[in-house]
């Protein structure tokens, strides 16, 4: 049967229309391009180029050519105004059916994970059967805007009717108005960069330089080992001459990391511990994740790696210093696990986004702190501790890099594959937890379970 229209899916559960979700949303797989350091191989690539490349690699991996996917959602943190329809444009430039709808989403560094969560929810509700989540960011091809002064002049000039009016508007222009503005990483309400915010948190939780360097070292070592083992063979597609993440330093050592000078929190003097080695660099890249209902995956003979079980978002009041800027996941994870009657001990793999090594370590310290557990999390004591051998086992952002909106997709696909492999080897269900902090004091965390 050949229909040149758009077929409809049948009712999810006959007779149950309008009832809450009962079906699973599964991760089929993912694809990303290797992440490049800003100003590197992708310096001339736009967000649209990179997102399209990541999509096309996903399509090729799973044979989705001309497929009408239920919905595609992606986003970018650093976004040009011309990219108002970034994801839909990427779909139109890809090998997918042009009849695939798409929307953009933006939630700072949580963008990628939030697209996974949102689309998984739509699948669970039966609104769609398949979806592609994703994210992209270019720190190299960042939007540069004109100053507020110049912008106002241009807009007023457009409204001016007569020559005298135009001359009058132009006379307001000052030389300083002509300087372009690049996007900053400073928080609008505090003026502090993310690194400076984390430096405060790092000092608060007394996270040592050695512990940070060790976490960074493990990230590089784990990522390099995963590449060597072929783990990324079906997760990454090369792009512009790069076949592995450009930031990966397989030969780094604790000694080398120890030689780096602190770059954040320098006003802390000897207490400055955050270096370029234990902080993520500005990065370019894109990632995608293929999600589906079990029926859709089965009908298309596609693998089912893991279910997106649940997710939780949280935010903290960092503006008044109540909590650190990147500490929202500290609150989101206990809420999420409590909802499922789980503790940290029930989690087989943790993926805690390494914005900075100290972010991960501050998070773990807060969970292990008795008083914090009692006074801030409302528990009887400490929330618990994370088995380090289960943490970021295939490397994370310190080694791979962190193109803001692309990180969630990177983690979700890699973790799903890891869970599926472990479950196959152990013959039991395996759980994974994703935690991503974001600007504005936000955080999104998600619970996955192997299939």
């Amino acid at each position, binding site marked *: 049967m050949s229909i040149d229209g758009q077929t409809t899916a049948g009712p999810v559960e006959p007779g149950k229309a309008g009832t809450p979700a009962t079906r699973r949303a599964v991760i089929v797989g993912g694809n990303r391009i290797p992440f490049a350091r800003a100003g590197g191989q992708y310096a001339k690539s736009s967000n649209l180029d990179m997102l399209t490349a990541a999509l096309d690699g996903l399509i*090729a991996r799973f044979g989705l*050519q*001309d497929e009408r996917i239920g919905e595609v959602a992606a986003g970018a943190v650093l976004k040009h105004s011309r990219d108002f329809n970034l994801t839909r444009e990427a779909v139109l430039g890809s090998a997918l059916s042009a009849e695939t709808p798409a929307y953009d989403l933006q939630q700072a560094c949580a963008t990628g994970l939030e697209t996974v969560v949102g689309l998984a929810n739509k699948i669970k509700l039966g609104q769609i059967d398949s979806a592609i989540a994703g994210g992209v960011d270019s720190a190299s091809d960042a939007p540069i805007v004109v100053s507020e002064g110049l912008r106002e002049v241009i807009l007023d000039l457009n409204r001016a009717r007569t020559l005298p009016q135009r001359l009058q508007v132009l006379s307001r222009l000052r030389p300083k108005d002509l300087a372009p503005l690049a996007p900053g990483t400073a928080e609008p309400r505090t003026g502090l960069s993310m690194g400076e915010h984390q430096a405060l948190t790092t000092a608060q939780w007394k996270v040592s330089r050695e512990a940070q360097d060790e976490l960074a070292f493990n990230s590089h070592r784990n990522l390099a080992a995963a590449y060597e083992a072929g783990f990324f*063979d079906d997760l*990454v*597609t090369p792009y512009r001459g790069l076949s592995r993440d450009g930031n990966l330093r397989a030969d780094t050592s604790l000694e080398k990391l120890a030689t780096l000078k602190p770059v954040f929190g320098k006003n802390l003097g000897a207490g400055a511990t955050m270096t370029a080695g234990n902080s993520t660099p500005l990065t370019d890249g894109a990632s995608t994740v293929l999600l589906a209902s079990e029926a859709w995956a089965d009908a298309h003979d596609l*693998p089912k790696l893991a279910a997106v079980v649940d997710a939780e978002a949280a935010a903290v009041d960092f503006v008044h210093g109540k909590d650190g800027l990147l500490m929202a996941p500290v609150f989101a994870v206990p809420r999420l696990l409590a909802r499922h009657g789980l503790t940290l001990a029930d989690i087989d793999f943790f993926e805690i986004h390494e914005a900075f090594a100290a972010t991960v370590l501050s998070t773990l310290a807060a969970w292990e702190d008795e008083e914090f557990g009692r006074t801030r999390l409302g528990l009887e004591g400490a929330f618990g501790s994370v088995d380090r051998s289960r943490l970021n086992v295939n490397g994370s952002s310190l080694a791979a890099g962190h193109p803001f909106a692309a990180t969630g997709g990177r983690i979700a696909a890699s973790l799903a594959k890891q869970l599926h492999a472990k479950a196959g080897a152990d013959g039991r269900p395996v759980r994974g937890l994703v935690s991503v902090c974001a600007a504005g004091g936000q955080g999104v965390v998600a619970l996955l379970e192997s299939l």
Partner: protein
Amino acid sequence: MTDTYAQLVNHGVGRNVARKLGLPQPAVLRRYQPGQPLITGPVLVQGNTAEADNLAAELLSWDLDVRRHAVPREKLGAIILALDEVSHPGDLEKPILSAAASLRDLAPNGRLVTVSRPASEADSPAAAAARQGVDGFLRSLAKELRGGATGNGIVLQEGIKATSPSALAALRFFLSGRSAFVDGQFLTVSGTSGVPARDPDKPLAGRIAVVTGAARGIGAAIARTLHRDGASLILVDIPAAGDQLAAVANEVRGTALQLDISRDDAGQRIIAHAAQRHGRLDIMVHNAGITRDKLLANMDQVRWNSVISINIAAQLRINEALLASEYFRKSPRIVSVASTSGIAGNRGQTNYAASKAGVMGMVRATALLMAGHGGSINAVAPGFIETDMTARIPFAVREIGRRLNSLQQGGQPADVAETIAFLASDAAGGINGEVLRVCGQNMVGA
């Protein structure tokens, strides 16, 4: 990649100059396009044997214009020369000289196909002499043909009829534009297990094929040709070539499997992917290969081992996995890419030639195993093919490489692909353990 010289001598002034100076004038070859007629012009079937009559009747049923006797000055699309009953060298004269009278009437891009029996030690000396004589005759005649015409031979093993499915498939292949760059070659038909294609334009419809080294060059051409012929594709290449692989996969609506075939578990990973996506695997095309040229005196361990590991050891290991797999049981086909370097040798390519000769040895020794599963394994040996790899050869050497064959030009990746598609087809099931050269009858290597 483009053969500028060939373009020059096929048009206007260049054509006249080349003719007057006696320069080589490579013809523009007739290459297969979907919907193209099998052959243009009448087909003359020469030779007074029962098989000649049977073939003539068969060709009539293909709606071809068949002649049993030459009509003077009538342009012929093809001449089929039945030599299957020769028992003494003296028997060659009549059919061959009759055909000779029609050679001038063979149209540009025409075809001459002999049908004969193999010479063996069991034959009488005279019969063996006559049968072996066909070999030298055809190879010489192919060198005399001009204007893109080719001469090839079908060798029928004892007991195999000229109208058996695979003999007819071979004849169809040699007559068609699919064999444009196959010249001066013999193909032996040894079995009857071929099944004629339901749709000659989609001979691989419903078949699941894996192509290694599919990101570019000959591998990408194989992917395109198998797709055109109806196969569903799994394309394999090393992870570092993944972007080009994805582009080819999206073009031919296949899936991209990034995999280093020299990994121990490559065979299992290919089978697992095929099983997951298609429930089985029917055709394995071993195309991936590398060159690491060095004179043997300067050869190091890395150069030697990487070539052996990827070009032959990987194929052996993957075949072992396939032969053991229940997913590879539906008229399975393996086609390997060998090389004329493995036949004739090539200075600076001791490692490469060893690996490619190894492929041919493997193919012959695997034939029986494949037959046990109702399948077949064959190899193609490309000669000079216009690819990115050969484009990097220095100009003078490249020109010599191009012209040193009966068609006076390099082949296209699609020429290799067409031959592979033919050997992978259901109809070619009776061809097993063979090596077919796609070289325009290169002067080296017989």
